[in-house]
């Protein structure tokens, strides 16, 4: 069980982080507002749900195929470690960039948003491909590589699915009423 937890936890964190980022991206640019916090929180929550839903089939197949066999579990543990080694630093860099963007000057924020975060988003498919190759190199197991490949490819659809489900069209702005939102200061 400890082995299983050690394998699953970092992968679950990766899926959650990827799903949140995908959901925030899906929610972005749909309403023209200055204050995006509510929209981003909602987008992140939806993205996380979608990401876990997308990888669930691969997880179920893996569980069925493993059937509790220790040897198979060890293979998948190696595969999971390979994915974490490739994708973990990328996710950590993105998380650090988000943090820097929150507190930095607008000049630094422009760089972080576009070059760092935008660049990481651009290379995401390539990182995913490298992670699958790493699984093969670590396990030399066709089934494990196929399952991790399937899970990775599924997770990459999180943005597209979230966008299609909730953000297919630009938001309809509410009519102007006497009761309005509180103003927000913007950096």
């Amino acid at each position, binding site marked *: 069980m400890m082995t299983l937890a050690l394998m699953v936890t970092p992968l679950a964190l990766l899926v959650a982080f990827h799903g949140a980022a995908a959901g925030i*991206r899906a929610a*972005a*640019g*749909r*309403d*023209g*507002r*200055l*204050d995006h916090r509510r929209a981003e929180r909602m987008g992140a929550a939806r993205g996380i749900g979608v990401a876990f839903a997308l990888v669930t089939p691969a997880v179920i197949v893996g569980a069925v195929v493993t059937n509790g066999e220790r040897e198979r579990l060890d293979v998948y543990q190696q595969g999971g470690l390979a994915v974490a080694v490739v994708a973990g630093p990328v996710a950590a860099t993105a998380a650090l960039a988000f943090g820097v963007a929150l507190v930095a000057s*607008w*000049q630094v*924020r*422009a*760089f972080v*948003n*576009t*070059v760092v975060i*935008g*660049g990481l*988003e*651009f290379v995401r498919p390539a990182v995913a491909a490298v992670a699958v190759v790493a699984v093969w190199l670590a396990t030399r197991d066709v089934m494990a590589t196929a399952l991790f490949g399937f899970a990775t490819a599924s997770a990459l659809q999180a943005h597209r699915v979230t*966008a299609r489900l909730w953000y297919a*069209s*630009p*938001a309809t*702005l*509410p*009519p*102007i009423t006497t009761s*309005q*939102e*509180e*103003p*927000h*200061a*913007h*950096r």
Partner: protein
Amino acid sequence: MNPAAAPSLDRLEILDVLWRRDPTTGTREPVHTADAAARLRASGQARGARFIESLPQTGGVLDQDALDRVFLGVHYELARLSEYLQVPQRMAAGIAPLIAAVREREGPGPVHVIDVGCGIGLDVRWMASAKIHGPDVEYVGVDLNGLLIEAATRLAAIELVSATFVVGDAFEAVATIAHPDRTVLISQGLLHHVGADRLTEFFSRHHESGLAAFAHFDVNPGFWSTLGGWVLHRVRMREPVSRHDGNLSLRRALDAPALLAHARAGVGDFYSLECADVAAWLPAPHRALRPIVGVRR
């Protein structure tokens, strides 16, 4: 550089052909699919023409709801991209000295910042919301597109932002400024839409109005802006029009010598002018947009 000899960069973007209004009454007019597509094909934009032909239409006229969705979808995305690049902050920092110069020359009192071609008004809404230039600055956005102005007005009301938005042509807006001595005129991404053949006239309107100062921001053409723009449009823009028009915009932007030539031809020696392309070995997104600045002597 002789502006009259400048090569034409007037390749049309998809949005350029999707909004038509009666020049006399200002009312919105229907867009005929064949006309719009033909204009794009004549401009060398066959892909854009195919996109227009794929839009819902009735009797050869493009469906207005579909057009509204296109305009709003593109401009909401564009606003978010501008935020990633911190464009409102960039513009606010760029015009702060101009506002200070107006205060110094004209004394206490309101300073007016007018953003022509404002779209959904992201930049002035941000400046007004942040009160970045102090309490005595009034922000106005002007755009030809009534749909975008309505969206800007609603957004300002929803978020309690003190900014005003009006429908109007950029040329007419410059000519009819109420308090030119206390007005700073700005724009973002407008100049390449004005077109090289009308830029000198546009700047001459600044001089005729007696405007205190202006700062028109546009893309600083170069390797990093082209590459960075392409990457950002790939990862951040989902609307096909955004991707098509965004990359075309980057190629339409004029360099500093061309802008200065048009501005000098328009304002003569009545304004001090400043515009410099930023050559950089490393990407500098905070300088991706740079202004041509004019201050009345």
